[in-house]
């Protein structure tokens, strides 16, 4: 009897091990959470798993930005994030330092007219590690009914606490704030980076930031500014445009976006170096960067696809949003919305980001 039990247990344990060994390889994607990750899940993750040709499980985890954890994982050899959704400066720094895999550029899906991926984009690919994701922007917004009389509609109004009273919600890092402060101070968008390259320009930006200093509430996660504006803690806030748009489109939230002064940023997907799921992750990246999926994400959130062919699909198929509304009026990188805005310069931030951030932290503290 004892022998029988023992053999049964051994068999059971062995069976469990065999089962575990056959487990389907899972691709883990680290992204920013909230409505954004939800849109990625729907546009990329679900379509990946459902596709009969590729298949595979995709698992989304949240992180708050920064390459600290990626670097730890790569240096220790214990990779848990196969793919990371990174900001432009990190896409450059990480590739330079060897934190991301360099991908073969010819495996990616071509546009319907045959253009290879690297030529089908609105910007030049900075290196071989990145796969295009979206365009997004920092933009100001407020809740309908907060202000009576004239409504704010320029970035200068965001910095004008006397005309539009109440607190301001801004993010706890310096990107886009310097540009917005200068634009609010009257610098035309085309000259902003030239002004920023001099110390006087930076001083000017911080002087403008000083005008709202006592009215500032900081946020660090994407959903927080919406919360602050809804609860009335702040009267205007800066946020990722997609979060605001998703709330307006999906939930009919009473938000009003201010397109003037928006700062457009790239977003890239990269693969962590040394990951065990290289093949599956590469298949996922090929899938996610195909024009159809790029357009597909705009069904759920109003971020612009980075590929021209993706944008073309959008324009041709309005109304595109999943609940039947038009998406083009909410796209950040249309000519109309870009009139008072600018494209961020990640190379400038790669160089000067550290010292500006330290100065910003000092400004925060005082």
């Amino acid at each position, binding site marked *: 009897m004892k022998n029988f039990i023992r053999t049964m247990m051994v068999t059971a344990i062995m069976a469990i091990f065999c089962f575990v060994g056959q487990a389907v390889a899972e691709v883990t994607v680290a992204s920013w959470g909230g409505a954004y990750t939800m849109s990625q899940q729907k546009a990329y993750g679900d379509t990946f798993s459902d596709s009969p040709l590729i298949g595979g499980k995709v698992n989304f985890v949240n992180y708050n930005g920064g390459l600290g954890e990626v670097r730890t994982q790569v240096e220790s050899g214990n990779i848990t994030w196969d793919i990371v959704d990174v900001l432009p400066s990190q896409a450059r720094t990480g590739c*330079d330092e060897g934190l991301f895999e360099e991908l073969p550029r010819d495996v990616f899906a071509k546009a319907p007219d045959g253009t290879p991926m690297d030529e089908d984009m609105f910007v030049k690919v900075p290196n071989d590690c990145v796969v295009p994701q979206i365009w997004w922007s920092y933009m100001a917004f407020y809740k309908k009914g907060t202000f009576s009389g004239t409504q704010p509609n320029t970035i200068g109004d965001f910095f004008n606490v006397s005309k539009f009273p109440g607190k301001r919600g801004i993010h706890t890092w310096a990107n886009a704030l310097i540009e917005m402060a200068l634009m609010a101070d009257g610098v035309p968008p085309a000259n902003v980076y030239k002004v920023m390259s001099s110390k006087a320009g930076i001083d000017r930006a911080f002087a403008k930031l000083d005008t709202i200093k006592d009215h500032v509430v900081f946020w660090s996660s994407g959903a927080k500014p919406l919360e602050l504006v809804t609860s*009335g803690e702040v009267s205007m806030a800066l946020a990722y445009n997609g979060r605001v748009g998703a709330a307006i489109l999906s939930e009919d939230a009473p938000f009003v976006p201010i397109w003037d002064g928006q700062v457009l940023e790239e977003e890239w997907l990269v693969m962590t170096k040394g990951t065990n799921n290289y093949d599956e992750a590469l298949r996922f990246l090929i899938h996610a960067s195909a024009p159809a999926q790029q357009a597909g994400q705009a069904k759920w959130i109003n971020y612009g696809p980075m590929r021209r062919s993706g944008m073309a699909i959008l324009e041709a198929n309005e109304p595109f949003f999943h609940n039947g509304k038009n998406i083009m009026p909410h796209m950040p990188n249309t000519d109309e919305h870009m009139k008072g805005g600018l494209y961020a310069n990640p190379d400038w931030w790669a160089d000067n980001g550290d010292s500006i951030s330290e*100065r910003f932290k000092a400004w925060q503290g005082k």
Partner: protein
Amino acid sequence: MTSNSYVASQPLLTADGIPLKVSLQRSMRRNKLRAIGLVLPPLLFLLSLFIIPIGNLLTRSVDDKLINFQLPLTFRVIEKWDRHTLPDEELFDAMSFDLSTINKLLITKNSGTQVDPDDPGWRVKIPKKGPYKEPILKINPNWGEVETWLPLSRIVQNALDYQGSKKEKRLVEKRAKFDICSYLTPLKNAACSQIFKVLKGWDQQSVSDEKYFKALYKDLSSAHKFLAGKSSTRMNYEKPGWKSLIKKSVRNIKKIKNPPYREAMFKIDERWDDVTFWQSLLVMKDPYTSGYFLNAFDRKFDEGMNIVMQPEERQVYVMLWWRTLLLSFIVTIGCLVLAYPTAHLLATLPLKYSNLLMICVLMPFWTSLLVRIVAWMVMLQQEGVINDALVISGILADENRLPMMYNFTGTVIVMIQILLPFMILPIYSVMKGIPPSYMRAAQNLGAKPSLAFLKVYMPQTLPGVGAGVILVFIVAIGYYITPELVGGKDGTLIGNMVAYHMQQSLNWGLAAAMGTVLLVAILILYWVYDKIVGIDNMKLG
């Protein structure tokens, strides 16, 4: 005349004939060994999973060797420079070699003062398309010896000998490729796959074939790219602009065919003409630096290696240190003031009520930290519960709502509530052990209740108070979550800056330096506490 005192004429013996002294010593040693044996597992656990990894990370606070790997020739030649005028051709020459060639990874004497600038190995040019064997042997003839390649071969063999599933073998091979590169370079994330491939079938007899050298060149060239990227990030902390300068130069220096390099490098980027960039190199020369510790206190080295303050607008750390100390102090005092009466109540009430109250103390303790913080946000924010109550009841006008969230006040309030159980429990357990008869005896002897309390009761509770104070203070000083969520502008503490440098700016040297300073500060405070109150006077119950 017999004496009454017993004089031992021979040593005392135990029942089995062994001298008592020896027997005693043996049993004491056995006890000691048993005690060590019991303590050893947790000690080893602590050492291997806590002290060693954290110690390793903290060594990054002084470790600056990465740049010395990247620019060995430059740092040797720069010693001759006068530091004030623009460097001459020799230094530009050295810089261009360090940036564009991989000779430093092949030559033996490639660090610190060992570097010989006149060694012809530095100037050997390895043609991009080959042949590779001759130039590499000219740089360092050791590469023609089998012994030099044996350690690499061993790594490859270990990977090939691994028994496991196909997938596992693939992963082990991948790791081995990283290991080969980390043997040859200071990088842990470069893959030397070509070397792995050629050494797979190696017979360990000779390395005369061109293919070994081709693999060596290819792998080291790609690893060199990452070395440049990593070290330029570090250089950028010292002087913003280095990152793009190095990147641009590495791309373009290969195009320079012949010396002189000076003018050619000016043409590549005008920053090479700026003497301040060269001066910043002087600060980075030493493999071990105290620069990070200086940065942690708003200071830095200037080109003469004097300690100067950072520019005014970048000074933030000293202010944060003071604020952290102040906030921890306020939180500790606040906790003490609230916890003492509570603990006294808990200790003196009959069991039925005190159990109930104890649940009130412990229940928040068991609730998730984030839930508690968010609950406070709801209570304290501008349109939150407290403000709304005050406005509705007419005490405050609508415009004068109290700002209690996302600032210093909010941080203090939330931290006091979070750290209260740490203060209540030690004091409570000490108070529980004080017999009530002491107070009655004191009052019997004529003392007023307040005098009895001060002279008799309070001194007995001091060990518990001490334990609670030290616990709360140490936790508060390193706290990071609460200031991050509710601190706003004036509630952020030094812990938030450590997190920022670990996650966002990747300046792990500075983060490690700040962590070390925190650790030393705690140890000093612990020592002071020991001198004043005495560690033996600390009781947790």
